[in-house]
């Protein structure tokens, strides 16, 4: 019996019992929708995590950390030079496998003031312009530091939007975006001119929250204006990045460090050296190269180490894998339940059609033809269910978005759709096997005589 014909007959059979078929399919529809929805939510979570990771400088950022010297060098510990500009220059010249080297000199205990407003930045750092590429910053207003700023140790700074919000007022509060280029603020009582401001960094989630707040009128709050809650709002990675203030490296040195940091002794050590490798696949040799250079500049004292984002990436991946596993198992169980529904209805259906099967056998249908017919019917139900499930999952995801509009948007992936459809077809086949076997084994005479 030609396959196409069999499939057509299968469709016809499903069509004859529309209501019953749809009820049967419901199991598969829900199963597919929950599997796809689950995968979409997890994908959204993954996107959120990756976003935060990029906010911290991306997966290819390597920190050059200060470390205790190894045990066999303990007697040299007091001669350990720490990370200095010498290292940076040496790395730039002698480690060609590094793409970006970004030195940072932090100024600690900083208080920013402007008129009667104050703000504690998350970090106040003297940097080279390499930091923009290193920490994946986007300069939206003004300019970054020039070589002249660096050379003259100019009192200029580039700020994140959160600092603007604190010192000048956020767009939400004042109703318009303030771009404070050219304004002067005090960093620990020293006047600095703002020359640039970064873009507002936020996750998809915060963005949605903000946009949602725009459409809703602000609630009237009695009493003086105030912020609610202490904790940071939104994702800490973005919040921290927005609270950044940068100045030229030399400015940090001349104005805050050279005069003596600890005990009045100038401290030329850098607070951070960040590296980016040209090619992530050559991370190992590149770090080895950097290590060789640094061993020279540190006179053989190994007071440094490297920290990569691999662990971070790995932990994100494990989390996602675990979430996928548990979600997948639950969805698979619901699909299995759908399969049981199909088997049930197929058994009932062949029981109703025993006589028909007998007629078909009398006119020459082989057991195999009957087997395939029943199996195809079961698969047709499963496939229709899967197709409706795919449609339903789009609706399901829309509902999820409406229910929690600020969560990371669930993303429907083709992979999840394919897996769901393939799995439900598999379930259809498995559910059809037993009824098909039963139908194929019917004896023609008994089937014909069946009342």
């Amino acid at each position, binding site marked *: *019996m*030609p396959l196409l*014909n069999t499939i057509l007959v299968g469709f*016809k*059979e499903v069509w*004859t019992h529309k209501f019953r078929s749809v009820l049967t399919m419901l199991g598969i529809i829900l199963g597919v929708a929950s599997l796809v929805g689950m995968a979409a939510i997890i994908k959204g979570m993954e996107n959120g995590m990756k976003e935060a990771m990029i906010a911290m400088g991306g997966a290819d950022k390597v920190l050059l950390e200060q470390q205790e010297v190894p045990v066999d060098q303990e007697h040299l510990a007091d001669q350990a030079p720490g990370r200095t500009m010498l290292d940076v220059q040496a790395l730039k010249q002698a480690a060609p496998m590094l793409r970006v080297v970004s030195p940072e000199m932090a100024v600690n205990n900083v208080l920013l003031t402007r008129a009667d407003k104050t703000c504690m930045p998350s970090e106040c750092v003297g940097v080279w312009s390499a930091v923009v590429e290193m920490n994946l910053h986007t300069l939206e207003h003004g300019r970054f530091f020039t070589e002249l700023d660096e050379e003259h140790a100019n009192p200029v700074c580039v700020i994140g939007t959160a600092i603007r919000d604190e010192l000048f007022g956020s767009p939400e509060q004042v109703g318009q975006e303030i771009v404070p280029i050219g304004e002067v603020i005090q960093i620990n009582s020293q006047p600095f001119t703002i020359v640039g401001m970064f873009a507002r960094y936020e996750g998809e989630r915060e963005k949605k929250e903000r946009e949602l707040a725009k459409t809703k009128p602000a609630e009237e709050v009695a009493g003086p204006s105030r912020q609610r809650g202490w904790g940071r709002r939104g994702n800490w990675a973005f919040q921290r990045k927005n609270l950044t203030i940068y100045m030229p490296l030399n400015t940090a040195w001349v104005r805050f460090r050279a005069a003596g940091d600890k005990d009045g002794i100038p401290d030329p050590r850098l607070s951070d050296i960040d590296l980016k490798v040209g090619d992530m696949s050559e991370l190992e040799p590149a770090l080895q190269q950097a290590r060789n250079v640094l061993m020279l500049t540190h006179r053989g004292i190994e007071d440094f180490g490297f920290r990569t984002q691999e662990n971070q990436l790995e932990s994100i991946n494990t989390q996602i894998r675990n979430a996928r596993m548990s979600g997948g198992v639950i969805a698979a169980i619901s699909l299995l339940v759908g399969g049981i529904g199909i088997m049930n209805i197929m058994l009932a259906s062949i029981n109703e059609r025993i*006589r*028909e099967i*007998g*007629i*078909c*056998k*009398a*006119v*020459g*249908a*082989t*057991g*195999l*033809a009957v087997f395939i017919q029943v199996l195809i019917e079961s698969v047709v139900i499963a496939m229709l269910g899967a197709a409706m499930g795919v449609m339903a999952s789009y609706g399901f995801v829309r509902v999820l978005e409406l229910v929690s509009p600020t969560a990371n948007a669930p993303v429907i992936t083709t992979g999840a759709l394919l897996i769901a459809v393939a799995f439900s077809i598999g379930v259809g086949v498995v559910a059809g096997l037993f009824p098909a076997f039963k139908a194929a084994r019917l004896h*023609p*005479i008994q089937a*014909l005589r069946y009342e």
Partner: protein
Amino acid sequence: MALVELRNVSKIYQLGGEEIRALDDVSLDIDSGEFISIIGPSGSGKSTLMHILGCLDSPSKGTIQLDGVMIQNASARELAAMRNRKIGFVFQFFNLLPKLNVTQNVELPMIYSGINGKERRKRALAALEAVDLVNRAKHRPSQLSGGQQQRVAIARALVNDPRIIFADEPTGNLDSHTGDAILSLFRRLSQEGRTIVLVTHDPEIAAVTPRRIEIRDGKIATKVDLTLAGLAGRQTAANLSQPSPSA
């Protein structure tokens, strides 16, 4: 060689430890082109005989040769192929598929023999023409009268050009007038050269066939029933397996 050769065929059922011989050592030849009736009261084994002849069932003992093929040990698949290509069935309850229309019902056997759609339709229409039902081709079986349904069943039996047609009480569910029409249709088919086996309990119906076989208690009765004898006028000398009533 005869079209059908039954040799010492028995069919034994086990029913609760008791052995029931539905057919007991039956031998029978049917030649190509014969119009033959199998007659016997209910429970006599005539249906069992028809099922075995029609490849719906296998005998417990004995050999059957149908159109040159030995089928007593054939597999279910081979039997299905035999039913499909060499045998046509007409049943008492018509046994049409209610979800298919007349043409589709007639096409059914050809679907299982893998004939393509165009050829199927052509042959189905030809078969419907043979039973004079072309104008009902698109109707559902439930929209037809009993006689018409039986004619559709006959068209379905004819459509694969079988070597032999089995009709199991074909008029049992019809009024006598319609039944006569069906019987005359069978007679016409017989005149066209078809081999037809009519299974019935009714001697009057059996009377239309030139040759009659009576089954009693699973055996071919050697003595002809008296009622049959009175109607046996058209018997031919070719029927050697049955003694002439005048002898």
